[in-house]
């Protein structure tokens, strides 16, 4: 035990002495979460809307007012002719055009439904889909209010209700994503680099000759990064609750537990990388290319897993971050508890055991 402690202390000294890296490790999660939360946002805010009102009746003007009043839309132009639509998009003056057909109000009141044409600039499909949803809900709300009570409802008006994240805030998606990415970065990359460094400098050989059991060397390396990751977890949660207004809706213990398992998994991955990579640079590249990219692209952090092609969905099953991110979303955003993340917990634990086993086996063969 004393041996282990003097060892863990040494690892902590390595980290503390390398001030730049430490600042990077502690500062990066905050920078990432703020960046993703504010700058790289998929939220819809102040979308420029142009109106092509061929109806010019009370109903169309009312919907226009509603749109303009909401903080998501800003009416910037009134068009006279459909031919004006394209030049407008080209010049980037508006990203949404709302077209009311002639006789809009009559049709609405007579049939209980009427058509609004929404033309969206879909070069940014994410934004396009989101504001189409908004605009639709504004229009349907008006239709509902103004239906004469006597008239029987004809036709089906879709009522879209968004659960859990009604304002479609980007932060709700990114907080779990950043957590999933950052843990991997800190744990997998840093652990693998620090083990490979010892091999490169020759200190690993000296340690292996010594009476310290290799498993203690490894555990002592992991302990400080585990600690660091807990600090990062805490800062990310604090920033997301107090700065980004993303609450932890569900059970905090469940969130912490699943995070711990994920950190262990990332540490095991780091160990595994260290048994493959011969140099520190290689370790960095392997963790960067082989682990970061799939996490960003396939874990559901950027693009929803459900909308991927089947083959990629299948591959994404093998990506630990996918399960972690899903679990964090369940707990943080949907406000669920332990039972709901049991499956993810089981999968992550299984993966951890698997990686540890493979890494230890590789580690032993490397010694020979």
């Amino acid at each position, binding site marked *: 035990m*004393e*041996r282990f402690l*003097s*060892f863990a202390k*040494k690892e902590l*000294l*390595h980290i503390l*002495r*390398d001030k730049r890296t430490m600042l990077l490790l502690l500062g990066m999660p905050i920078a990432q979460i703020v960046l993703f939360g504010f700058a790289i946002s998929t939220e819809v805010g102040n979308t420029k809307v142009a109106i092509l009102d061929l109806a010019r009746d009370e109903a169309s003007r009312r919907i226009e007012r509603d749109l303009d009043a909401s903080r998501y839309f800003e009416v910037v132009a009134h068009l006279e002719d459909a031919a004006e639509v394209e030049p407008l998009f080209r010049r980037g003056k508006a990203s949404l055009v709302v077209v009311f057909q002639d006789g809009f109000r009559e049709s609405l009141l007579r049939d209980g439904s009427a058509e609004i044409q929404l033309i969206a600039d879909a070069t940014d499909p994410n934004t396009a889909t989101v504001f189409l949803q908004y605009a639709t809900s504004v229009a349907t709300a008006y239709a509902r209010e103004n239906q004469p009570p006597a008239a029987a409802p004809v036709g089906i008006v879709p009522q879209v209700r968004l659960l859990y994240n009604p304002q479609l805030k980007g932060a709700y998606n990114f907080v779990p994503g950043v957590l999933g990415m950052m843990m991997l970065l800190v744990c997998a990359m840093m652990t693998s680099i620090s083990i490979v460094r010892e091999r490169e*400098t*020759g*200190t690993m*050989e*000296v*340690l*292996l*000759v*010594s*009476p*310290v059991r290799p498993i203690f060397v490894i555990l002592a390396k992991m302990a400080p990064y585990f600690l660091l990751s807990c600090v990062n977890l805490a800062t990310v949660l604090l920033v997301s609750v107090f700065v980004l207004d993303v609450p932890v809706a569900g059970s905090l213990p469940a969130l912490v537990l699943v995070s711990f398992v994920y950190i262990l998994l990332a540490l095991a991955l780091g160990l595994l990388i260290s048994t493959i990579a011969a140099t520190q640079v290689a370790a960095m590249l392997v963790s960067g290319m082989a682990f970061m990219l799939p996490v960003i692209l396939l874990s559901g952090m950027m693009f929803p897993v459900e909308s991927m092609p089947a083959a990629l969905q299948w591959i994404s099953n093998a990506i630990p971050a996918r399960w972690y991110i899903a679990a964090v979303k369940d707990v943080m955003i949907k406000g669920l508890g332990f039972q709901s993340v049991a499956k993810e917990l089981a999968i992550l634990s299984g993966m951890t055991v698997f990686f540890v086993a493979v890494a230890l086996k590789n580690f032993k063969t490397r*010694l*020979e």
Partner: protein
Amino acid sequence: MNVIETERLTKRFGDFVAVDRLDFQVARGEIFGFLGANGAGKTTAMRMLCGLSVPTSGTERVAGFDIGRQTESVKKSIGYMSQKFSLYDDLTVAENFRLFGGIYGVPSREIPSRTDEMLELLDFRSEKNTFVKSLPLGWKQKLSFSIAIFHRPGVVFLDEPTGGVDPVSRRRFWELIYEASDRGITVFATTHYMDEAEYCHRASIMVDGRIEALDTPARLKQAHGAASMDEVFRNLARKATRRAD
């Protein structure tokens, strides 16, 4: 009393016999030079003696323990200094002593006094809290050696300890080795410098995985009618059929 004893110690990698039936003994307090060209099998043999590699066949006893069955006890009673300089650069001199003292089970209250003692010996007192990375190479190597014998091992293995340092520093380094040997620590060293081979009590020369010659430097020179160890070494190494790696 012998500190190292091997019997038909062999290591095979597939069809390749890296170390072929080594039989030798090293006595307590002896300075034993383990010579051989690159690829002759020195490093493999030394790795087996340190417990880093498992022999294919044969037995080896180090510090009175069977290395296959009592690995832990062997590891506690040997010291090791590797070819590469291998202390922690970003720790201070004293922190390196504390770390390795801790690893080898030196009681923690004894570590400070032993550290001072060692630094006294090296004339290093002023560098106690210096980061190792800012020391010159010659000093680092002396420090490595001191750390390898800090826990007072029965035998210390040195793998080309003086690579890359100037002759004056090498000379000083060997003074440290003599001092350790006077205190009863057996020194087992590989080297490529034949002037250093002259300093050893006994030296062995490996050729193609086998020990071709083993005796005191004086008697080796006599037997080969040579003026220096360098000549003896060239005589024997010429017979090698294996390519150096």
